[in-house]
């Protein structure tokens, strides 16, 4: 087949409907988020003392860090879904979460006596955290990857990892309203491990599913 002949076929197909990636990704995560909230409500539920802790900075930190990371990851993910999306362009966005986590941990270390650090870091429900965040992420991750298949990522594994970060920060924000462990040291240890697992899963899945 000559190239000019191929071009004729491509031109005849010019009218296929456009797809807005930001919109589709938003809808996918909206649906994934709804499923996660329903699952969350059925199993874990809000913490009973939510109203009492809502004003405390440790609680706010635990909720705000995933939300900010999610927004940054959303932008980064759209960028990485393009053939000309370079990893170094999105690196600052991907580092927002880790930097916040470190800053929170630093504040906690400065404010509390050394003797309490270990207890604060280990918390009471690390096991629940490690299971809940990945479980609540599953639907969002699959939905985000499905949308990203319409993209053309320069690095499929990296785009998949960013999708994992999106799904995980969404579910971490939801889980934070249940989790009774409020120390930023707990967040730095267990939330990041749970989120990291989902990022890894997204990277592995994306490396296969997002090739184009």
């Amino acid at each position, binding site marked *: 087949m*000559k*190239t000019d002949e191929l*071009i004729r*076929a*491509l031109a005849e197909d010019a009218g296929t409907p456009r797809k807005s990636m930001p919109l589709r990704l938003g809808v996918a995560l909206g649906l994934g988020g709804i499923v996660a909230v329903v699952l969350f409500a059925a199993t874990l539920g809000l913490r009973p003392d939510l109203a009492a802790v809502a004003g405390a900075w440790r609680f706010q930190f635990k909720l705000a860090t995933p939300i900010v990371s999610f927004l940054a990851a959303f932008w980064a993910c759209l960028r990485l879904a393009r*053939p000309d999306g370079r990893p170094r362009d999105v690196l600052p966005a991907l580092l927002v979460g880790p930097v916040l986590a470190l800053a929170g941990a630093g504040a906690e270390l400065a404010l509390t006596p050394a003797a309490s650090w270990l207890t604060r870091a280990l918390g009471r429900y690390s096991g629940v955290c490690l299971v809940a965040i990945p479980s609540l992420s599953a639907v969002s991750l699959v939905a985000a990857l499905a949308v990203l298949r319409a993209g053309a990522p320069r690095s499929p594994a990296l785009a998949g990892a960013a999708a994992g970060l999106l799904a995980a920060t969404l579910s971490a924000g939801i889980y934070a309203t249940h989790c009774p462990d409020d120390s930023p040291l707990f967040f730095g240890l267990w939330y990041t491990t749970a989120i990291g697992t989902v990022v890894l899963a997204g990277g592995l899945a994306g490396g296969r599913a997002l090739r184009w």
Partner: protein
Amino acid sequence: MRRVSDRDSDLAGLMRSALRGDERSYKRVLEALAPVVRGMVRSNLARFGTGLGEVEDIVQETLLAVHLKRDTWDERLPLLPWVRAIAHNKLVDNLRRRGRRVQLPIDDIAEAVADERVPEASGVDAARLLATLKVRQREIVTAISIEGASAAEVAARLGMTENAVRVSLHRSLQALARAFRDKS
């Protein structure tokens, strides 16, 4: 001689109309991109000391990806860097399939000269991969690409609606892209 950025903004303007469904502009963009991509592919394959037998296959695979992934182009940005990124990806895929370990710096292939030398060249793969399509799909693609028929003419000939022909054409192009990607 015109500057590259002038030409890019011409092409980007055509591509913007194309994205709004203007087939004529779209054909002109693709025809203008083909020699640019060919130049890039040819000079890079030469640099790797590999044969030039697959140049046209890579050009066609790139154009197919440009087509199917055109929504990933940000209309506010120049067009050629985006096309180059796609060509880069397809070039690396092709070299890997041939068992070469490659790390092509993306900026390296930036300034290749457009190559108009082989406007009549054929891709071997596309013809072979066309054979993997369903019979009806192959009929439609062949009629439009090789015979130059329009979707409406093909519809009349095959007793289908024009819309059905267009849907089938689109699916065929997706299948063709998949076949390119998965060929061993």
